[in-house]
């Protein structure tokens, strides 16, 4: 017991050094404090505290607990530094630091071949993302002569007013977006995320609730630059929307709780990117916050899923119900009750309401459901307004084709899911299911590639 106590004391000391260093660094560099920083800092402090507290008993007795806390604190400090950074270079260093310390957590059990493979896969993808960020750093300095955020944003605003966007700036925006996509597990670079369950549950929580958001933070923080490039914005929206639906369709087929959650994270990150691409940075921030809390809780309590009741047979929902459910949206629209600044996102929200209503029986249930729907609508748009106080949404020129395509994709997905029970006998649906169950083979491909680039030593365990 004494041994463990000593280890914990040592780990606590070691762990304390880094936040202190980080804090010292941040104070020395005068942190970039705005509402976004404050909100993100609040979130990450809460998460970090929860995860540290959780790991105390969860990893009790593990010979590596001290090492675990050491790298957990390193990772946490880098996240804080990333949030507080006032210039792009500091930001990029924190970005790299997060990834390198996380790498140590991912191979916390180095005797597990699966853990090593996943860590290596992530390592390779992250370095690709880092090169993009390095490229952006280089281009930024060449164009603006500074890495300081305030100076950069002021310069970006001047450019916007001049309507003359140099190629270098567009390239910078695209590189930033690319780096963010790799960090936030966007298709087709997502496959590292679902394979990282070979590490203790609190690391999963940290990753899925914290670190994965770094891509979103990058885009939201640097939105003045990213919005300068319509191509970058369109790419964000398109890749984000595709990743969102891809991830959530694959998640539907997974039979283990952590893989379900992992593909759900891929999807949710996609949606966050879609929101960024549509200029709804405030909603992206709301999504980031809400998803973090939801996912942290889901991972940390994933052992409770055993008490879940077996699900009942699903019944196919009628198309009529879907249309009926969409009625309130149409009514609200025509009545001008709400100004839909984000027609795509509001559309997706009302589609979701319709889906909730179609499971209810007509009568008292449906009535209460409608009341609940009204309440949820108030909450959603209320939260949107609140989020807009933290981050300004950007006005992006409407891209009607893209918007229509995205809405149509979401509608089709909803329809498809509602018809699943009817599609059970169809051979096309069967094939689709089987490919989806395999994540459309991207994991296996990425694994093979990783094994070829970074072959594993024989790590077989001996008794």
């Amino acid at each position, binding site marked *: 017991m004494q041994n463990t106590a000593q280890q914990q004391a040592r780990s606590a000391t070691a762990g304390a050094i880094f936040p202190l260093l980080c804090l010292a660094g941040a104070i020395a560099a005068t942190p970039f404090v705005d509402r976004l920083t404050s909100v993100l800092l609040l979130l990450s402090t809460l998460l970090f505290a929860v995860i540290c507290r*959780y790991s105390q*008993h*969860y*990893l*009790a*007795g*593990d010979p590596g607990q001290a090492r675990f806390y050491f790298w957990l604190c390193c990772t946490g400090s880098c996240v804080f530094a990333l949030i507080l950074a006032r210039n792009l270079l500091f930001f990029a260093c924190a970005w790299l630091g997060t990834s390198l310390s996380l790498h140590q957590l991912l191979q916390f*059990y180095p005797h*597990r071949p*699966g*853990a090593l493979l996943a860590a290596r896969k992530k390592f390779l993808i992250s370095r690709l993302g880092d090169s993009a960020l390095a490229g952006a750093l280089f281009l930024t300095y060449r164009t603006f002569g500074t890495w300081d955020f305030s100076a950069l944003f002021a310069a970006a605003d001047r450019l916007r007013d001049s309507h003359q966007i140099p190629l270098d700036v567009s390239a910078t925006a695209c590189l930033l977006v690319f780096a963010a996509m790799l960090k936030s597990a966007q298709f087709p670079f997502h496959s590292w995320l679902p394979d990282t369950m*070979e590490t203790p549950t609190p690391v999963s929580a940290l990753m899925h609730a914290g670190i994965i958001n770094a891509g979103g933070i990058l885009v939201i923080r640097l939105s003045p630059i990213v919005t300068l490039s319509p191509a970058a914005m369109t790419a964000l929206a398109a890749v984000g929307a595709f990743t969102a639906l891809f991830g*959530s369709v694959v998640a539907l*087929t997974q*039979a*283990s709780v*952590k893989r379900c959650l992992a593909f759900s994270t891929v999807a*949710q990150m996609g949606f966050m990117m879609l929101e960024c691409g549509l200029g709804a940075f405030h909603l992206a921030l*709301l*999504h980031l916050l*809400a998803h973090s*809390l*939801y996912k942290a*809780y*889901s991972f*940390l309590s994933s*052992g*409770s899923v*055993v*008490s*879940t009741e*077996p699900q009942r047979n*699903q019944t196919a929902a009628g198309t009529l119900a879907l249309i009926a459910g969409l009625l309130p949206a149409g009514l609200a629209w025509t009545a001008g009750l709400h100004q839909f600044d984000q027609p795509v996102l509001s559309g*997706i*929200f009302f*589609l*979701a309401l319709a*889906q*909730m209503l179609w*499971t*209810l029986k007509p009568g008292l249930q449906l009535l209460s*459901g409608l009341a609940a729907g009204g309440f949820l609508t108030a909450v*959603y748009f209320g939260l949107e307004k609140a989020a807009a106080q933290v981050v300004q949404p950007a006005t992006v020129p409407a891209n009607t084709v893209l918007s229509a395509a995205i809405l149509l994709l979401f509608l089709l*997905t*909803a329809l*498809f899911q509602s018809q*699943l029970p009817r599609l059970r*006998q169809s051979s096309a649906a*069967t*094939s689709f*299911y*089987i490919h989806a*169950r*395999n994540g459309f*083979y991207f994991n*296996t491909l990425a694994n*093979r590639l990783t094994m070829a680039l970074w072959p594993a030593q*024989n790590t*077989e365990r001996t*008794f």
Partner: protein
Amino acid sequence: MPVELLVTSKETITNAIQTACKRVPPLWPLQNFVAVNPFLGLTGRTFADAARLIDRVGHGPMLMPAGYYAEKCSQQALRPDQIAIACQDYTSSNAPADPEEWLKAELARSSDTTRLLTVADWLDHTKSTSWAIFITDEISKWCSSYFDRALSYWTMPGREATLYQAWKQAASIDRNPEVFGLPDFRTLVRALPDNEEAAIHELLALLGTREEELEDFLHRQLMSIFGWSAWCAFREREGAENLTRQLLAIRLAYDAALLTLAEGFDAGHGETAPATFTTAKYLAQLAAEGTFRANLASKLAHAPASTSKATRKRLQAVFCIDVRSEAYRRALEAQAPGIETIGFAGFFGMAIDFQDSARCPVLLAPRFTVNSTGTPASKWLSKAWGQLRNSASACFPAVETGGLWYGVSIAKRLLGLTKKEAATQPLQWQIGLETRVQLVADALRNMSLDPAQLASIVLICGHGSSTENNPYGSSLDCGACGGHKGDVNARFAAALMNDPEVRAELQRRDICIPAETVFVAGMHITTTNQVVLYDTERLTPAQLQELQGWLQKASASLDDGGTQRSRDWSEVRPEWGLAGNAAFIAAPRSRTRNLELGGRAFLHDYDPAADHDNSVLTLILTAPVVVASWINLQYFGSTVNNELFGSGNKVLHNVVGTFGIWEGNAGDLRTGLPLQSLHDGTNWVHEPLRLQVFVEATRDRIDAVLEAHPQVRELVENEWISLISMEGDVFHERKRSGWRWLPTA
């Protein structure tokens, strides 16, 4: 490939398939994780033979590492005389002069064994590939989808068909093996027959297995996906047909497909590896058990006489035989003179079905249905919310709208505010008077309770655990209640015994329960060591207060912070469960009342004088002893080889289909207990000793039972349990060759 190898007759193959499938033990779901003897299919051989077989086909040990035993030698934890006896028994050679030193030297030596290889194993060993892992993952993928209970929203098409057919449909479309580098797998699968047995015949012809290796080769295939095989074996118990055989066909298909990459593979030609079973290790194991047995025997033979006979009985409390009851019973008895405790299987003889789950030992089938009258609250709104959250397109706005609320859930969990005690719902049943009377009469007799001598309060106390966020929660519940909490059985038993109709009828049959005797139900919460009482309305307030006072004081004397642990969502060791179990004692309580047994013994009350027709002894040896041996061997297997018979590290656990566990990303379904249930991080908390069964009965009576019940005799003679007869202070141990005097000095 020599042609003569392929002419194994169809019948031989069919028999070999059956034999191999029967060697796999069942695995219960996490909802009621009943302890199973992981060597269930191997008890027909001696322990040593089984260990050699597992070494060959499971590539793992059934004993602790040599270093563990060497350390025991160094700590002088093995008595030299016991080493000598083990040596004589097992090797028929005389013990050397200094047994400890000799054994230590012997332990350092290693010998070789031959491990049987699948094609995947062979490729991995010769070409450093990772096919074995890949195949396990592939099979695990389809099995998890096929058997999934509630996790995936979009369930596997073709689940209505058999496992093999559903897999065949999926695998003939699934490109994953080919993407990974297994050529033409879909072609091979499409060409397979629709019947799994025909497929096995075909695949074996491709693999060219030698007849004499056949059973073990098939067993090796099943061991490479041991967890899913065990799950199939469980589903077969529940009524599914030939599932294990179907899984075998699936596993063989992958192996046969690998043949194209495995030039030079020879089925049945194994790989030489250091043996995990050595004579020295087994001698050390025998000596450890011998030491424990001898020490316990001398304690039991010279136990200080019980003094409580003279005082009036104030409370009789019937507890489960579970080892955790032992400590609590001692604490309760210490509260006042006149408190008597009794040990009996925690279902109290009531084999009931409650809300579609069997609340009785798995060796029995439920005979009566009990329901609770409470109506479950309507949860349509939370269901609608769940529907939103799980929808592929609606989950995004759902998270945005409701996600922040999870901050509150996290805060609640952090503060331990999530524990809600479910309100006790009244029970109802419809059982005829005659049956009820018979149930009560049998229960009283089997519990060795003399109706005329009953105390005014009789507590029928089941047990259950209380943990948070713990997939293995039910492994801490009552095995005699089929892996459920014991409250319903206790309440049902107490209600029947209080039933005036039943009592009147019993009186007519000369079974007179005193009118003032009140039966009251309770549940011992093993995590917190508290006792909850149910349906107490028949007790007077004074009686209730007195009873609660005793129970609370007993709980307080055992309190070790369990309440905190029971509410902690990050706790991986909420309680030690049955860790440490090593003995089963069937005797009157007077034999053990003044002994401190350290929570290592199952205590079953048994009074041979009252058991005129040997029926109670038969019941004890054929039911509770077998269940206890399942528990004991589950702990044994999980400790000696957690990789194969245990479920690994809790911090990596990933719940599959809501019924099972993967460790990490994927891999095989895990069986047995997690490491954290056996090991505190520094030391093993469970010492792997086979069950030492001490019975207060003459050798003749025990032999009569063994004669009539070969499955119990097999357990004893093949060294899966030890059986000791206690007659006064004369003890004998039952060996294969017969009874042997056990010194108790």
